[in-house]
């Protein structure tokens, strides 16, 4: 009785707060209907989710896959509301960094047995498998990968007197390359990133810290809500490096306020030396007629030989309370199967089946090979607080990326970011 009253309150609360979410869940409330499978995805995943849904419908006549696309920034709120109101979709494709949040809330079904029973269970991309695992139970399945790498302009490398076939392998080489390209002339810039978009900045820059053993959170703890470590000496040293690059003209001034709208800087028109981005960006670049020769290389650590990457992309989950649990699993199984994954590779999306990499993806070119190398060496930040720590445009990561990199006191900015981050972690403490 007590429980149902809280549920009622929660319902009213969420109703007032997120009326839109209700109308959405109402749209997909054809629940229990085995002829229709409801799938939610974020706007970044619209293309491939719809592509696979269509294929799945063709393979299963009589079945309709009803795909709902949510704006990236609304996923957590809308999915959370739908699950707590007992009306979730059958399958959801979410940004892999959000998996720990929902796992912590008990929002996803345990898929351990089903995933382990797959023929290719051991071939699923480890970084994404880990992101969906808690206490040895797997709650999400890898779906598509989006790994961060460094794109660079070989022509500008040549102009700046750098070897275009020897892209940076250390922080220092990275800084030197950016600074010397930035010094080429007025409208030529060295390196650009989106400091106002915490998720983008983490995707582009965090791997360079990870590669050298540093981190923004205490990932080694394995906890769902690890402590914040924004003042980790490796992090501070890296911010100081970036801060120096700003002073030396290696980083564009537009980086400071870029909220992710302009993540590629002037790279596409040949005026930017280097930019870190993901698999999706390769599609954009390869579909346009670039006025220069492009190179792709892993994100370097402090010392030569250290590389890392953030493995983004989407994982699939079946929410608790899904009406068609079995049909949902059939879809998940199919989406990780050969047909679906090969189709993804063909359309230029990085698959999550490591056994298909050589035959279907990295063989497409050195760029894809670099993305695969990154996927295998990369990791996913594992914390329930990802949104508040990293994505939030008013959160500690953005603050560090703006005030730390562009300000005049790295230590003060780091300390301030750490203080905010600690408060977030404390608030999200699991009981």
């Amino acid at each position, binding site marked *: 009785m007590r429980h149902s009253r*809280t549920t009622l*309150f*929660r319902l*009213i*609360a969420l109703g*007032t*707060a997120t009326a839109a979410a209700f109308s959405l869940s109402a749209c997909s409330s054809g629940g229990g209907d085995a002829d229709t499978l409801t799938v939610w995805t974020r706007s970044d995943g619209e293309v491939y989710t719809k592509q696979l849904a269509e294929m799945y419908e063709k393979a299963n006549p009589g079945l309709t896959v009803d795909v709902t696309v949510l704006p990236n920034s609304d996923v*957590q*709120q809308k999915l*959370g*509301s739908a*699950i*707590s109101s007992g009306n979730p979709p059958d399958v959801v494709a979410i940004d892999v960094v959000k998996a720990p949040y*929902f796992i*912590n*809330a*008990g*929002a996803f079904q345990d898929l351990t047995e089903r995933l382990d029973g797959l023929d290719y269970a051991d071939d699923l991309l480890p970084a994404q498998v880990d992101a969906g695992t808690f206490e040895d139970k797997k709650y999400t399945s890898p779906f598509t990968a989006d790994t961060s790498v460094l794109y660079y302009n070989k022509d500008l490398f040549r102009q700046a007197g750098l070897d275009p076939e020897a892209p940076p392998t250390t922080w220092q080489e990275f800084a030197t390359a950016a600074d010397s390209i930035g010094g080429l002339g007025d409208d030529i810039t060295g390196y650009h990133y989106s400091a*106002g978009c915490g998720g983008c900045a983490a995707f582009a820059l965090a791997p360079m810290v990870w590669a050298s053993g540093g981190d923004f959170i205490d990932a080694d703890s394995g906890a769902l809500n690890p402590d914040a470590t924004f003042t980790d000496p490796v992090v501070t040293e890296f911010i100081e490096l970036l801060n120096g690059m700003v002073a030396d003209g290696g980083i564009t*001034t*537009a980086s*400071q*306020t870029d*909220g992710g709208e*302009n993540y590629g800087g002037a790279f596409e028109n040949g005026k930017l030396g280097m930019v870190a981005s993901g698999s999706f960006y390769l599609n954009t670049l390869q579909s346009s007629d670039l006025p220069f020769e492009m190179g792709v290389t892993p994100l370097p650590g402090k010392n030569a030989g250290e590389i890392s990457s953030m493995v983004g992309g989407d994982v699939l989950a079946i929410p608790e309370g899904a009406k068609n649990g079995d049909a949902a699993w059939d879809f998940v199984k199919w989406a990780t199967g050969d047909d679906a994954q090969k189709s993804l590779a063909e359309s230029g999306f990085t698959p999550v089946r490591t056994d298909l990499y050589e035959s279907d993806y990295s063989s497409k070119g050195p760029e894809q090979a670099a993305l695969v190398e990154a996927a295998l060496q990369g990791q996913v930040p594992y914390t329930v607080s990802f*949104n*508040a720590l990293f*994505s*939030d*445009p*008013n*959160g500690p990561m953005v*603050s560090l990326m*703006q*005030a730390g990199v*562009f300000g005049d006191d790295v230590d003060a900015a780091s300390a301030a970011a750490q203080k*905010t981050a600690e*408060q*977030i972690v404390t*608030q999200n403490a699991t*009981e």
Partner: protein
Amino acid sequence: MTETLSTPVTPSPDTSRRASSRVRSTSRGRRPGGAAGPSLRERRLSRTGLLAVTPALLLTAVFFVVPVALMAWMSLHRWPLLGRSTFIGLDNYVRAFTADDTFLRSIGFTLIYTVVITPILFVAGLALAFFVRRPSRASTFFRTIFFTPYVIGFAAASFLWLWFTDPSAGSVNAILTSLGTEVDQTSWFVEQWPALINVIVMVTWKVVGFQMILLLGGLNSVPEDVLEAAQIDGAGWWRRLTGIILPLMKPTIILVLVFSISGSLLAFEQFFLITKGRPDNETVTAVYWIYNVSFTKFELGYGAALSVIMLVLLLIVAAAQIRLLRGPKND
């Protein structure tokens, strides 16, 4: 409504009784119908009146009273988006005033914004109202021009502005550069004041037309003959403005200022969309922070507590404002 109005003229069975009661009460020197209790007619009127306001009462209850009560209840809890909520008493309120620097800073910033923009909007609105005061074809044209931005939503206007002031593609920087001004390509959002000025210019452009229309109504209610008499007595325009026009426009001014100040204290979209709090949360308003806490961090209980605090602040400001503007006489 129509029925109520027509009742007295429609002959009805109780007409004679009412008439006699009127005679009796008049003889006792009471006002008509003023017997010991309310008359049948009065009772019927009040019942009809109650019926008439019921929809409004219901709407207020459903859309105001219930949410506010729920919000107050939530504010006493740690209330995550998913998972169980826990009762924590007044902890959220304590946290707001002791541990949340950004919230306190956001209230300060909201007050600064309000203090800066209110006089700008009022003076500009009044000036425009004077400008378009006399009815003519030209003034209709200008009234329309000035009012048009008001019908654009804040979100759309903010995006428009964001685009105008974009460092690489926007027209504002291009114009400033062509006029020979050195503009740092990102100067709008790397410092607090340029970011604030950017928003103030947008809001003024968007809202001033509405203030103009409201003030125009007040301005037109000032009797011409009084102004003429003052002019004959030798009062200059400033004397006429401060001594006659503004005092006579007091009710309109109160309305405009209450609208404008509470609107500014609730500022959100323009900052959320244009500055995003840049630089380093220096342009985060109170409502922006409430949004961030509730829908980015999903601390719904804490967000509710901040909303309650905000509601109390608004009530205090609105009450103080009305009291101050009315002046001591009317109290």
